[in-house]
């Protein structure tokens, strides 16, 4: 893998945040840290992430609210929930809101990395099928159209993606 996976980690426990970030960096992840929901959302606005690790219980905006906003704004950003307050109910709820996986604290790093890899593959697959659909659509629109028409169609599809 030539390109580093870009990962956003959101947790209010700074010590936890620092060490997990360091460990994942050692394992070739490109990590950005956020200590609360607001910071996390701002980070997604400034940068493009492949994956996000999200804590649920945080002061201010809680994990679920953050999850909802992120998934609305970035359809292909896969979110993994990491929490010490795990329960079946909240796991189901988060999955419904679009979380890729749900991992209770404390966990084994190997397990987390496995999930991160799966999530990254899922993201690539989704993006690929999206790209393919886009190409097909473009091809359809392009037949018998002028160069200007093709350009307009491409712009329309860009808008759709957002």
């Amino acid at each position, binding site marked *: 893998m030539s390109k580093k996976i870009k990962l956003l980690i959101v947790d209010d426990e700074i*010590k936890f945040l620092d060490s997990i970030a360091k460990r994942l960096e050692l394992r070739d992840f490109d990590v950005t840290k956020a200590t609360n929901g607001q910071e996390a959302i701002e980070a997604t606005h400034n940068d493009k992430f492949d994956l996000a690790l999200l804590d649920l219980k945080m002061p201010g905006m809680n994990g679920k609210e953050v999850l909802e906003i992120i998934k609305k704004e970035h359809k292909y950003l896969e979110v993994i929930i990491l929490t010490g307050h795990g329960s079946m109910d909240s796991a189901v709820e988060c999955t419904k809101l679009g979380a890729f996986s749900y991992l209770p604290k404390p966990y084994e790093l190997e397990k987390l990395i496995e999930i991160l890899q799966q999530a990254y593959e899922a993201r690539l697959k989704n993006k690929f099928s999206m790209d393919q659909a886009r190409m097909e659509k473009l091809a359809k629109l392009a037949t018998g159209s002028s160069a200007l028409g093709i350009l307009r169609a491409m712009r329309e599809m860009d808008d759709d993606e957002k």
Partner: protein
Amino acid sequence: MLNISQDKSKTTFDYLPFNEKHYSEFKRNNIVRLLLTYLTPLIILAIYFFYQYDKMVSDSQHLHLKAIAENQSNTFDLFITERIVNLTNLINDPGFNFPPTTEDMQIYLERLRQNSQAFTDVGYLDSSGVQIAYTGPFPSLEKQNYSTEAWYIDLKNKDGNFIITDIYLGLRNKPHFTIAIKRIIGKQITILRTSLDPERMYEYITSLEGAQEVSTSIVNHTGHYQLVKSQVGKPLDASSFMPPKTPKLGIENIKIEKSSSTYAYSWLKTADWALIAQRTADENGNLLSGYRLKILSISLALMALISIMVYYRAGRLVEFQKETDRTRAQLEHASKLASVGELAAGIAHEINNPLAIINEEAGLMKDLLSANFGDPPETRELIQYLDSIHESVFRCRDVTRKLLGFVRKTDMDISPHSIHKIIDNVVDGILGKEMEVSNIEMVRQYDNNIPQMQTDANQLQQVLLNILNNAIDALEDNPGKISITTGLVKKKIQIIITDTGMGMTREQIEKIFLPFYSTKEVGKGTGLGLSVSYGIIKNMGGKIEAESTPGKGSSFILTIPLHSKG
């Protein structure tokens, strides 16, 4: 060897908190109590009516018996009077021959017998007391000299002109009695005498209405039978009952051996005799036992009915009680599970976060020490991670320690204290430094009339510290005021701690005393402070209440008895 039930499908968990023995006892107690409640008044009532009936029946029996006696004695008086009138009419008849012949006497007897068959003979006595003319069944009585007979002497000397003798056997040796009338002609006393058949008279009076129910007899003034039923006695025998001379009419109960009899008596007006109407207990008893049987059977039927109903109701009551107990036990069990679950979840969650830190720090140290990841680390860096692990372990310990404090009812160390000293100790001693550097104005308003209290100062300090810490946190480093007011309300100490902080919403107030509930940032509070405080104050026999207006501040009101419970 263990005894394990083979049939597992039969093993069902019943929430019933008591065994069957408890319920059968409960049922029995209920039956006894209900039976006592329902049957006692009924039994009292039955007994009352039983005796009331008895009295009523015997009263009416007495009245009836008395009426019979009176009626019979009146009739008897009338009979005697009629006989005297018959004789008087005869002797005063202008056609009466003086002295009469035996033939005359036969005619006269016929005339008398037309009036009454009781006349058996008639005789005429001259002034010397010799019966010079006679007719009747004893012809030998003719020429009989009566001058020495007691009744003759009596009649001769008395003012009245008739006499009735007691029954006597007399010259003819057969019980009879005599009515004699005297007529004075010139200086000569002549007497007409007649014998009356007692049998006839007895038939006459016993043929009266109601006489069949009783046994009637007539006794003379010495208590000897004159007229009597043959089954009861013979004439001239002494009567078992001697009627008193006064009152003239009366009733008495007499018990002879086992049988009791009721005697109604009435003294006659014409003779010195008394009529006695007697009813034996058997006759009374038959009548009474009829009533008694009726009352008894009605009462028994009612008691049986009530007993059946009580038994049925007691059964229903036990079923109802079982259902209630079962439901309550179920609820208790459920709520116990819920609170245990809540606690367990709270501990797990609180501990999970520090555990995750420990996990990561340890993992990171392992990463750094392993050959896979670059250069060996500096010792300083490793010590930093170890410190972090140490701190997280203490965080876990805090959670478990406070939890144990919440669960266990710790023994209180009670001694006399001044509440104001306890507060000052917390504010100046423990919180002192924190207060100095902050912008918080601490106002204390003490009621100096509060006496010394018996309490555990350490526990109370812990409570005050928890509340004051919350108040300081609520101010969020903004300038503000915390006031502590004490007072005495209904012999209990009231401490009101008010802050001008951010306040709480209704939902928050509802949860603040629950374990692990916290509005603070992670790591700042375990959410156990107020629930521990709540437990302590409750143990002391007091209470904590909270009031708040969001944005304006909160008040905690502590009410503690002057003497804490041990």
